[in-house]
């Protein structure tokens, strides 16, 4: 793409805007009655703000809007259909985007368009033309030179203007930019690239010199990770009043929550609205367990901006716009936090080893129906335990039912009009199109699911996530531990192993619960225990007459298994605390941490790495997990 370079008389800017407004919906910075600078629709009489520090809200606010329709549905319990929103977005032109926000857009493109492409963003992005405007003076809270994202932009725009007294330097970087300039040749005076670069470099240096406070972000990953347990987190978290202003204004905050809206008795839609990791409800699950404390939540936002986003996406998570500092009523200032972390970073010889487990990004997959569930009929329901039911589902689209091949680890299950939850896949590949799920009645969606009957329709998206690596289990002894509903995710592996029983060594299953009645798959467990070379044991807190059971901990049962431990494989599905206790004993017995597998099922909401709820460090549990080795698990921050 050959770039092109011009100068424009500043007095002709209105003519440019006027011309651009004919090529699409043009939004320009305008000063509102509350003095906020907002992107608003251009009109020849609108009061374009020529000089401003920054837009009050980032362009993401305009791009995603407050609510964003994921799909519409129509029907009733017996016949639902769902469809993605019609693609009818018209060309949108944003004028006056500052370099920090251009850098944010650079990250957003990587975040939204890769892995599972966010179709809503992709559609709007395709129609978007961005005209950047370089800065000539810093605001009180700006620190973009520290993050390397300003005060001049070097990528992320279609056109870029640099103000220089009574003229603008204009750089065109893309075909979209060219289209905007095509009819304006008489307003533009071409210049050489060198001329533009030389002059803008001087202007940038002048602006850069006028920042009076810049934090040092050199090697911030090291300082931040070393400072994970820094006392400053305990100090600032009580000052945070949970207003969520920081995440509302951040140009790289993308987390969302889904709301179900009923339009009338037989139709509705799912919309997403901006969510915030600074709320408790963001990570708290239906059973009221919250893996993130207040301190952890405050720390997570800053670690995400400074470390996690860059670890995963290779782009700056913080672009130095300073909006979160300006908006915080408690004066939480990312700049001073960076300073403290840097200042207290221990010398190299005292540093703890940094995590080496980096997420592998999955290949880009584009699916117009990414957020739209496919209808499936409930063909059977059976009670597994008090409050736990097994549902057998089959896609209503028979072709899909037959074509479907198992992969991954969980499905997103929708009860139309109520909501969506992640459910593990407790069946093997020989399912014949019958998909079985187990759900405990805990929250809103599982309660609604419990009301449904055979013949009713639910929605399915998936399967998603990484499953267990069956092939690596071949020829080895395999231990499978499931605690309570934790047995659901490991059932897959039991069934898979038993389908090809001869390939593996001894198989031991330990099922654990408070009471025997609380276990799921009771009949399956009995059946499996009768197979040759398979042992099934129970570790219960309360005695039972139903089966022979050990009253005590899972750990008590391990030594007597007499496995070939150094070559064995283990799958642990339990609370993180229990996983650690069992894994510690397994390591003592001679197992390797990389041979112990766990399934970390945390509050997955969208299933495709976009909503942000299940992010732990730089890993999305729904993309990179939920299956992790114990070795990997130990490297994750303990917030799952």
């Amino acid at each position, binding site marked *: 793409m050959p770039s092109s370079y011009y100068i424009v008389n500043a007095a002709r800017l209105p003519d440019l805007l006027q011309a651009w407004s004919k090529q699409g919906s043009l939004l320009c910075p305008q000063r509102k009655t509350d003095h906020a600078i907002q992107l608003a629709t251009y009109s020849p009489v609108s009061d374009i703000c020529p000089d401003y520090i920054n837009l009050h809200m980032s362009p993401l606010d305009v791009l995603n809007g407050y609510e964003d329709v994921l799909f519409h549905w129509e029907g009733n319990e017996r016949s639902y259909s769902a469809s993605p929103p019609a693609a009818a977005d018209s060309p949108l032109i944003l004028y006056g985007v500052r370099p920090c926000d251009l850098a944010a857009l650079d990250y957003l493109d990587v975040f939204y368009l890769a892995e599972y492409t966010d179709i809503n963003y992709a559609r709007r992005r395709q129609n978007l033309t961005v005209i950047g405007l370089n800065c000539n003076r810093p605001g009180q809270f700006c620190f973009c030179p520290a993050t390397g994202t300003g005060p001049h932009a070097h990528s992320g725009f279609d056109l870029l203007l640099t103000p220089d007294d009574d003229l603008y330097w204009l750089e065109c970087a893309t075909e979209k930019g060219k289209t905007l300039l095509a009819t304006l040749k008489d307003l533009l005076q071409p210049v050489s690239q060198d001329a533009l670069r030389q002059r803008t470099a001087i202007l940038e240096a002048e602006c850069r010199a006028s920042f009076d406070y810049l934090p040092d972000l050199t090697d911030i990953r090291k300082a931040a990770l070393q400072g994970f347990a820094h006392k400053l987190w305990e100090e600032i978290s*009580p*000052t945070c*009043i*949970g*207003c969520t202003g920081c995440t509302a204004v951040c140009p790289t905050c993308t987390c969302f*929550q889904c*709301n179900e809206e009923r339009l009338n008795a037989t139709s509705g839609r799912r919309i997403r*609205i901006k*969510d*915030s990791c600074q*709320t*408790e*409800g963001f990570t708290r699950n239906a*059973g*009221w*367990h919250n893996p993130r404390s207040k301190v952890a939540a405050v720390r997570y936002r800053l670690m995400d901006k400074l470390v996690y986003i860059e670890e995963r996406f290779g782009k700056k998570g913080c672009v130095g716009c300073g909006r979160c500092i300006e908006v915080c*009523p*408690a*004066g939480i200032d990312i700049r001073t936090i960076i300073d403290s972390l840097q200042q207290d970073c221990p010398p190299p010889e005292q540093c703890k080893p940094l995590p080496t487990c980096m997420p592998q990004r999955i290949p880009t997959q584009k699916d117009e129906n990414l957020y739209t569930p496919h209808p499936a009929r409930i063909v059977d329901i059976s009670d597994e335990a008090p409050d736990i039911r097994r549902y057998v589902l089959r896609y209503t689209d028979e072709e899909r039912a037959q074509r479907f091949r198992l992969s991954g680890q969980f499905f997103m299950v929708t009860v139309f009009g109520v909501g969506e939850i992640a459910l593990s896949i407790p069946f093997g590949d020989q399912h014949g199109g019958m998909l079985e799920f187990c759900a405990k009645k805990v929250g809103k969606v599982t309660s609604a699911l419990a009301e449904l009957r055979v013949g009713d329709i639910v929605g399915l998206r998936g399967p998603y996530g990484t499953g267990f690596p069956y092939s690596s289990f071949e020829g080895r002894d395999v231990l499978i531990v499931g605690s309570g509903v934790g047995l659901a995710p490991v059932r897959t592996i039991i069934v898979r192993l038993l389908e090809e029983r001869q390939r593996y060594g001894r198989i031991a299953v330990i099922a654990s619960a408070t009471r025997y009645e609380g276990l799921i798959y009771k009949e399956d467990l009995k059946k499996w225990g009768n197979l040759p070379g398979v042992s099934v044991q129970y570790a219960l807190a309360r005695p039972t007459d139903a089966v022979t059971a050990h009253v005590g901990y899972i750990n008590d049962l391990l030594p007597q298994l007499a496995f070939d431990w150094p070559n064995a494989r283990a799958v642990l599905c339990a609370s993180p605390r229990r996983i650690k206790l069992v894994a510690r004993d397994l390591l003592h017995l001679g197992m390797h941490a990389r041979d112990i597998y766990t399934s970390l099922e945390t509050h997955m909401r969208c299933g495709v790495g976009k909503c942000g709820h299940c992010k732990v460090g730089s890993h999305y549990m729904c993309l990179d997990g939920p299956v992790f080795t114990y070795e990997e698990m130990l490297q994750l921050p303990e917030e799952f």
Partner: protein
Amino acid sequence: MAGLATSFGSGAMTNSFAELAHSKCLFVIGSNTTVAHPMVGMRLIEGRRNGGRLIVADPRRTALAKLADIHLRLRPGTDVPLINGLMHIICEHGWQNSNFISTRTENFEELHDSLRQWTPKYVADVTGVPQDMLLRAAELYARSEASAIVYCLGITQHRCGVNNVRSLANLAMLCGQVGRAYTGVNPLRGQNNVQGACDMGGLPNYYPGYQKVEDCAARAKFEAAWGCTLPARNGLTTIEMMHALHDGHIKAMIIMGENPVVSDPDAGHAAEALSRAEFLLCLDIFPTPTTELAHMVLPGASFAESEGTFTNSERRVQRVRQAIPPLAGRTNSQIIAALSRRLGHVMPNDEPCDIFDEMCALTPIMAGMSHARLDTQSLCWPCPHQEHPGTPILHQTGFTRGRGLFAAIPHVPPAELPDEEYPFLLSTGMRHAHYLTGTMTRRCGILERELPELTADIAPADARRLNIREGARMRLTSRRGSIVSRMHITDSVPEGVIFAPLHFAEAMVNLLTCPALDPVSKTPEYKISAIRLEKV
């Protein structure tokens, strides 16, 4: 309000919010400011960042208490002993401001005599606050260049609420920490416009601008202005009205934007009283448990559909401008005017600016205000004439009543304390996600997700003893009622205390609360009731 009005002659916040960020010492008592008044909490945090010292007196270890230089973790209901104890220490050490006392106040001897019994040792025994902390707090408050007191419902929602407030007024006058910038006695109001409602005469004993109903001259002025005869006696407070409705002395009631079925103490009583009304008319923007009992409900207008003024805690009158026309067709003032017309009195003005101008004409403290002036600035009353810049700081040269009035304040213990049968002390309040009875905030998805059901705080030791797990549901029972709540284990509450928010109509904490009232202000003792916990 009654307490401060008796001591100073005015019941409102003496200073302004912005000043708090520059006080040398902030004494916050009975206020979970960062949760209940976040915008004021922000000033307090800013004040602390600016080097101001922070004293928090609260039985709970709130987020603000965690930031405090001194956290006085007093036993619930021992505010008067605490403040008397601080004043005892101040007098012992000669830290009082004798000049201020002699030139600006009266009746000091009565207070001074009453302090004798409140020795540090005795106060430590009664309040549970160690003596050295009392000493440090007393010195910090008395000797700082500018100390401000901030209080809220933790002080007033007791049967001794007026006493608590008068004690704080005593303390401020004793040290001369009032009438100057960055000082004062600052009650925080619970709503954006509760101060405005009081200013407007929404009280049983006042006309607009705190002109007394029982003052013949004031009454004559309003009778002349409104062209009607006005009652010569004070009216009833809301709680008294509920009793009168219950007993049949009141037959009909109009309720605007309130939800007493959920918010009144001993809530079963309020519901019972309202269902006895021969005619109950409610005006609200959403259905509530109260509107369910109404014979007729009129659709009210929200803030966004309203034109007029709001007056916040710091007596600052600000314009609110209509953003959208009323969805239901009428503004609240149009509804009131229409009701008045049908009841036989035609109100001459129904344009918000005319109503406001009428009020300013009849109200000396707001005589200098008008919509025109407020269009470009906000003004704190008193603002007696057109050129007056408003008064962010009250009592600068003299108190509103002349001299500040000291009084000996006795300790009145709470009406209902824990006993063997009901061993826990229940205190009520707010969480940050919801506002009052939740009629608005519980309709907002993310706020509702943040706190979808009643969650009560319990101390770790109590939880261990009763074998309660985080998030478990328990039954909370008092002598008046019983509800089920999730339990949250936190060291923010002391042992023996349960804290529960009042936001939930389906689990009304006010079914449990004690109906004891302050004898003067009639404010209920929401902060202290005895309950027991049982497994569900």
